[in-house]
C-alpha cells in the first residue's frame, strides 16, 4: 500500500523487517525485487507523488568547491527520485572500470565483474531500455561515423590499437521516471510506502545496530520506525548527509570510524577539451548525435581502447563530437523560421505523426530526387531540378543550398541526410575522476525544516585528473590525425589550477559511501553492508568506488537487484 505519513499520529512507533529509506530508483528497484519475500518492507519517501517545493527545499545546500549545479535541483525529492528529471542515458560498466589501476590510488571495485554483469539484463528492463545491447556493430551504418571499420577495430591491420566509437543508449522520455512503478508498489502485498516521511536520523541507542529510524513530516509530526535492517537509498549526496547527521554513537557520524563518509565524492566532469578540424568538411556525424535506430535512441562517443588506457595508466575519457556547421548553414538551421516550423510540427503532433514534418520530408525528398519540376503551393522556395541535381551531386555546390533553397529546406536537408558542411567539431570530454578524499559532502551549520543539517558539496579535481585527461587527448588527437580524419587542437590548459569555465558534471553523485574490501578504504563491504553497522546497507551510486565509463543509473539498479538477493538471505 501507499499511505501518507502526514496521517501518522505524532509519536507513533512502527515496526518492520526492512526499512528502505528513499523512494528513488535504488529503493524502488529493491522493493520491487522483494515482492514475494517472506518479510515486511517499509519504504520511507520524503516527498509525495509529485514535485512539491516545500519538500524539495530540504535538498538545498551549499556548493563550496568547484562550481556545480544548485543543490536545490541537483536531485529530486518525490517518489521516483531523480529519475523524474533523468536524461535516460544508459551504458553499463566494463570489466576495466572495475579493475584497480596501479597508478591511481583507491581504484578498483571489490567485486568480480560477473557479479554485476548478471544483473544488467534485468536492470535494463527496469530502466525501460528496449532490445539490443551496446555493441557498436549492432547499431552503426558504415558511412556515418568518423572512423572506418578497420580504424574502429581493436586491432586493425597493422596491429596498433586505435580509437573506438562506443554506443550509449537513451531510455524514451515517457519511460524514464520510476514513478511509473507507483501502481506496482501500491499492489505489492508485503510493502508499505510512507510518503512525506523525511528521515532525520538513524539511531543506534549506543550499540552497533540501528534500533530506530526517526522521521518527520511537513505537518510537524514525528514518528519512529523500528527495523531489523535498514537500507539507505537516498542518493549520492543524501546518503552521506544522513549518516553524518546520525551522531548518537559517534559525533563524526554513523559508520564513519575511518572518516570516509562523504569523502571521495565523484562526478563525471565534462567540458569542451578540444576541437577537431576535419579534412573532409562533409563527413557525416549522425552517429555522434542522438538518433533513432530500430526503435532505440543511440549516440556514439569516441574513446580510447581499454588496452591503451591500461598501458598508459589512464582512466576513462569519452568524447562527444558536436559538429559546428559552416556559418551559412548554422544561420539557416538556427533561423527563426526553422524554429517556428519545429514548434508548429510539435504542435500538430510531433515527429511521428506531424503532418508538417511529413510534408517537409516529402518536399525534401523531392528536392533530393529532383523528380518534380515544381511543387504547387509548396510552403518553401523550391529551386529547379537541374540546380538541385548539381547541389546534391557536388559537395562544393551543395554548400550553396542555404542561398538557393532557403532556411527550412536546408534544415530539413540536414535532418534527412545527416550532412552539412562542418567548420569544426567540438570535442566535449567526459572523464572518470580519481577518488580524492578532499572531494566531499559535509554538513552545513544550517538545518532544513526537519532539523537535518543541510549538505555542503565540496567537489574537487586533482592535477592527476588534468594530466590524465591531457594525455588522453594527446593520444586521441594523434590517432585522429593518423586516421586522416583531421587535426585536433586542445582548448584547455595543461598547467595551472583553474578548470575551464564550462566545466560541469552529469548530475552523477557517486563515491560518498564507497564500497571496499577493507574498512580502511570504504564505508560498505562488497555486499553493500556497512563495515561498522551490521544491519545497515547502502544502495545507490554512493557505493561506487570509481565513476567508470558507464552511467550510474543502470549500474545502481543492477546493484540494488544484487542487494535484494543478499537481503532475502539476511532476513529469511
Amino acid at each position, binding site marked *: 500500500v501507499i499511505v501518507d505519513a502526514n496521517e501518522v499520529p505524532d509519536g507513533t512507533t512502527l515496526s518492520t523487517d526492512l526499512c528502505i529509506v528513499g523512494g528513488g530508483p535504488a529503493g524502488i528497484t529493491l522493493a520491487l525485487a522483494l515482492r514475494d519475500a517472506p518479510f515486511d518492507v517499509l519504504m520511507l519517501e520524503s516527498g509525495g507523488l509529485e514535485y512539491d517545493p516545500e519538500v524539495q527545499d530540504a535538498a538545498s545546500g551549499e556548493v563550496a568547491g568547484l562550481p556545480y549545479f544548485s543543490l536545490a535541483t541537483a536531485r529530486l525529492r518525490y517518489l521516483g527520485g531523480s529519475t523524474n528529471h533523468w536524461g535516460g542515458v544508459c551504458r553499463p560498466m566494463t570489466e576495466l572500470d572495475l579493475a584497480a589501476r596501479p597508478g591511481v590510488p583507491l581504484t578498483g571495485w571489490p567485486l568480480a565483474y560477473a557479479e554485476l554483469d548478471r544483473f544488467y539484463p534485468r536492470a535494463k528492463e527496469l530502466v525501460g531500455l528496449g532490445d539490443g545491447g551496446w555493441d557498436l556493430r549492432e547499431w552503426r551504418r558504415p558511412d556515418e561515423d568518423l572512423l572506418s571499420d578497420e580504424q574502429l577495430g581493436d586491432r586493425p591491420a*597493422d596491429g*596498433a590499437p*586505435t580509437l573506438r566509437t562506443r554506443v550509449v543508449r537513451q531510455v524514451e522520455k515517457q519511460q524514464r521516471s520510476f514513478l511509473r512503478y507507483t501502481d506496482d508498489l501500491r499492489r505489492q502485498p508485503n510493502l508499505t510506502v510512507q510518503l512525506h516521511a523525511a528521515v532525520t536520523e538513524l539511531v543506534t541507542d549506543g550499540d552497533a545496530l540501528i534500533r530506530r529510524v526517526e522521521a518527520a513530516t511537513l505537518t510537524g509530526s514525528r514518528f519512529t520506525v523500528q527495523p531489523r535492517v535498514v537500507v539507505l537509498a537516498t542518493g549520492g549526496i543524501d546518503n552521506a548527509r544522513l549518516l553524518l547527521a546520525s551522531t548518537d554513537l559517534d559525533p563524526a557520524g554513523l559508520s564513519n570510524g575511518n572518516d570516509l563518509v562523504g569523502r571521495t565524492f565523484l562526478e563525471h566532469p565534462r567540458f569542451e577539451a*578540444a576541437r577537431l*578540424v576535419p*579534412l573532409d568538411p562533409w563527413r557525416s556525424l549522425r552517429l555522434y548525435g542522438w538518433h533513432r535506430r530500430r526503435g532505440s535512441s543511440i549516440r556514439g562517443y569516441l574513446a580510447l581502447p581499454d588496452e591503451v588506457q591500461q598501458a*598508459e595508466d589512464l582512466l576513462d575519457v569519452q568524447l562527444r563530437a558536436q559538429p559546428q556547421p559552416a556559418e551559412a548553414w548554422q544561420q539557416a538551421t538556427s533561423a527563426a523560421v526553422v524554429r517556428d516550423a519545429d514548434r508548429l510540427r510539435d504542435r500538430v503532433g510531433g515527429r511521428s505523426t506531424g503532418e508538417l514534418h511529413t510534408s517537409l520530408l516529402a518536399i525534401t525528398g523531392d528536392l533530393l530526387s529532383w523528380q518534380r519540376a515544381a511543387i504547387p503551393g509548396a510552403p518553401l522556395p523550391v529551386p529547379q531540378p537541374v540546380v538541385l541535381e548539381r547541389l546534391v551531386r557536388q559537395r562544393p555546390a551543395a554548400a550553396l543550398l542555404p542561398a538557393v533553397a532557403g532556411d527550412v529546406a536546408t534544415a530539413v536537408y540536414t535532418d534527412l541526410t545527416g550532412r552539412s558542411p562542418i567548420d*569544426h567539431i567540438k570535442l566535449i570530454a567526459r572523464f572518470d575522476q580519481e577518488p580524492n578524499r578532499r572531494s566531499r559532502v559535509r554538513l552545513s551549520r544550517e538545518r532544513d525544516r526537519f532539523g537535518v543539517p543541510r549538505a555542503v558539496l565540496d567537489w574537487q579535481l586533482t592535477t592527476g585528473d588534468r594530466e590524465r585527461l591531457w*594525455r588522453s*587527448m*594527446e*593520444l586521441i*588527437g*594523434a*590517432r585522429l*590525425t*593518423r586516421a586522416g580524419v*583531421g*587535426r*585536433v*587542437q*586542445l*582548448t584547455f*590548459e*595543461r*598547467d*595551472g589550477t583553474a578548470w575551464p569555465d564550462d566545466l560541469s558534471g552529469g548530475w552523477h553523485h557517486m563515491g560518498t559511501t564507497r564500497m571496499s574490501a577493507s574498512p580502511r578504504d570504504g564505508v560498505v563491504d562488497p555486499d553493500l553492508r556497512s563495515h561498522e553497522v551490521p544491519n545497515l546497507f547502502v544502495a545507490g551510486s554512493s557505493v561506487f568506488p570509481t565513476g567508470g565509463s558507464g552511467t550510474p543509473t543502470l549500474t545502481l539498479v543492477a546493484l540494488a537487484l544484487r542487494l535484494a538477493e543478499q537481503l532475502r538471505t539476511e532476513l529469511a
Partner: protein
Amino acid sequence: VSSHVPASRPPTVSRRVVLAGAGALTVTALVPIHGGPWVRALNAVTEPLERRVARRLVGLLPDPSALHALGRRALATSAGEPNLSSVVRAIAVSAPGGVAALAAAPARELRTHLAAVHDRELRDGEVVVIDGWVTATLEARLAALAVLLEHRDRHDR
C-alpha cells in the same frame, strides 16, 4: 623541441597551417629532394654535416614556408635553446647510423623513413602540443628546422 607548453598562451598557429602540415608529411606528398646532384655535391664540400642534413630534410617539404608559423611557436615553447644542429641530431636519433645516415640515404629511403617515423609517433602518441595543436614530434622538429634554416641562410647572406 620538448613537450612543455607554457600555460595560457593565446593560440597563434592557424588551422590552415596545421592542416598544411598534415599533408606535408605523407609519403606521397614529399617532393623530390631539393636541388640536383651537383647542388648536393657543392653543398657537401662547403657546409657542416648537420646543416646539409637540415637542408635535405626541409627540402622534402613541399612548402616549408607554410610551416614557419608552427616552427616559430615550436621553438618559442621549447624548454631549451634548440639550434639547427641539436634539432637535426634529435631527428637523427630515429635513424640507424644517425646524422651521417640521413645525409647519405637516397631520397626515396629518406622519405620513407620520415613517413614511417611520423606514422609511428602518431600511433604511439609521441607528440608535442603547440598552441593546442596535437603535432607529431617529427612534424614540429621539421617545422622548427625550416625556421632555423631560413634564419641561418639569411644570416649568411
